[in-house]
């Protein structure tokens, strides 16, 4: 292409077409003379006339973005002659699917750790409370003092307090993920679970089996609270619903354990009190009869 005065060189489009590059050339801003390969790709896929047609159908403010996408599409087609941008889209979909599956696995493991940690905390606090209250009673009896009016209700509160603590813990949302993410997570967790169920992979079976093993041994003192915990955790309620009927079996089993667990709890407290000494206990009981509990 001949240059007049050598002020400006023809754009790659006009150079390719061997024509004069006028100042009003639509493609000149987007195909500099040094980017011949880019233009060749765009020309090979779309053709100059089709590109100009697209640009003329758009507002001038949209030209830059349109040309950017046209060049990108043409370059991808040059790189992947068969699938082009569709291949890129499929790869991204596959990538997203893999990430979601991995997220599902990690969230499952995280939930198991949270429950295990939570149960351990509750057990520890429960035992600590029992021992501290027993120590209080022992110390008061040793001093020959009448236990406080609320001593007996304290023992009753031992069984009830975990419920309130559970409620407090569940409402604190310390460990709960953001709800907008959780709702999405619950949907694709169900979806992915159904998919993996259909495929019969063993990956989903192991977390469920591990979870059931975690629930059963820890059911002794706090099994009855677990049902309330499940109800309080809205974000994992759909998760449990999506698993299978074994979860309901575990709940009923826990319910049965809880009825015996409460009795064992009372026995435990009675044993601890019994270690004090029968005479002291009788004296304490006598004090109770004379005072109102409330």
């Amino acid at each position, binding site marked *: 292409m001949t240059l007049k005065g050598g002020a400006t060189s023809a754009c790659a489009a006009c150079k390719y077409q061997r024509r004069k590059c006028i100042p009003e050339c639509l493609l000149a*801003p*987007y*195909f*500099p003379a*040094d*980017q*011949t*390969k*880019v233009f060749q790709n765009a020309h*090979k*896929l*779309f*053709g100059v*006339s*089709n590109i100009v047609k*697209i640009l003329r*159908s*758009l507002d001038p403010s*949209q030209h*830059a*973005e*349109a*040309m*950017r*996408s*046209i*060049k*990108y*599409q043409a*370059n*991808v087609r040059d*790189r992947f*002659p*068969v*699938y*082009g*941008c*569709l*291949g*890129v*889209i499929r790869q*991204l*979909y596959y*990538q*997203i699917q893999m*990430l*979601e599956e*991995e*997220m599902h696995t*990690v*969230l499952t*493991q*995280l939930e198991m*750790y*949270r429950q295990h*940690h939570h149960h351990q905390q509750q057990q520890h606090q429960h035992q600590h409370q029992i021992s501290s209250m027993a120590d209080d009673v022992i110390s008061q009896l040793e001093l020959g003092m009448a236990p406080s009016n609320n001593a007996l209700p304290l023992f009753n509160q031992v069984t009830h307090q975990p419920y309130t603590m559970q409620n407090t813990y569940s409402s604190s949302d*310390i*460990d709960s993920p*953001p709800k907008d*993410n959780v709702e999405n997570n619950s949907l694709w967790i169900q979806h992915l679970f159904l998919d993996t169920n259909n495929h019969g992979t063993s990956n989903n079976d192991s977390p469920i089996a591990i979870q059931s093993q975690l629930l059963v041994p820890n059911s002794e003192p706090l099994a009855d609270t677990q049902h309330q915990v499940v109800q309080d955790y809205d974000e994992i309620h759909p998760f449990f619903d999506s698993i299978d009927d074994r979860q309901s079996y575990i709940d009923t089993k826990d319910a049965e354990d809880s009825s015996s667990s409460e009795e064992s709890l009372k026995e435990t407290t009675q044993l601890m009190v019994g270690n004090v000494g029968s005479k002291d206990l009788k004296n304490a009981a006598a004090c109770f009869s004379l005072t109102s509990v409330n």
Partner: protein
Amino acid sequence: MSSSSYSSSPCAACKFLRRKCMPDCIFAPYFPPEEPQKFANVHKIFGASNVSKLLNEVPTFQREDAVNSLAYEAEARLKDPVYGCVGAISVLQRQVITLQRELDATNANLFRYAYNEMPPLRPPQPPPPLAAGQSSAFCYPYQWNDPSDEDNERSSGGNM
């Protein structure tokens, strides 16, 4: 034209171009007459001659995939003349970035729990703001290097 010797009707391409559909028509296997819109879209965006050249450069067993991808891109460009199918790529790429960040954060929490620590609650961080040179929210995932120049797409403002 001995129409009696041809039992099949002309393909959608030859029908659109109003020409005789020869037995060795390159479009015939991939543009059946029952799908006229498919060729119409492809012709409008890419042109019949460009599609023919592209198909000739592709092995025969991959031509159907090539045609389907071209049809998809043409339809996307007709629906969105500015971004075409590249808009979907940008959206998906951002989704991948977001998911990857969430996964990294969740893995970090899991790691802390595995060592019996309470993890601090950290919401997923939002995507970084656009750089000064970026004109839109588009994220082009693939880098394409023009072997003929050093500054790849910089002068045209592309980030490819």
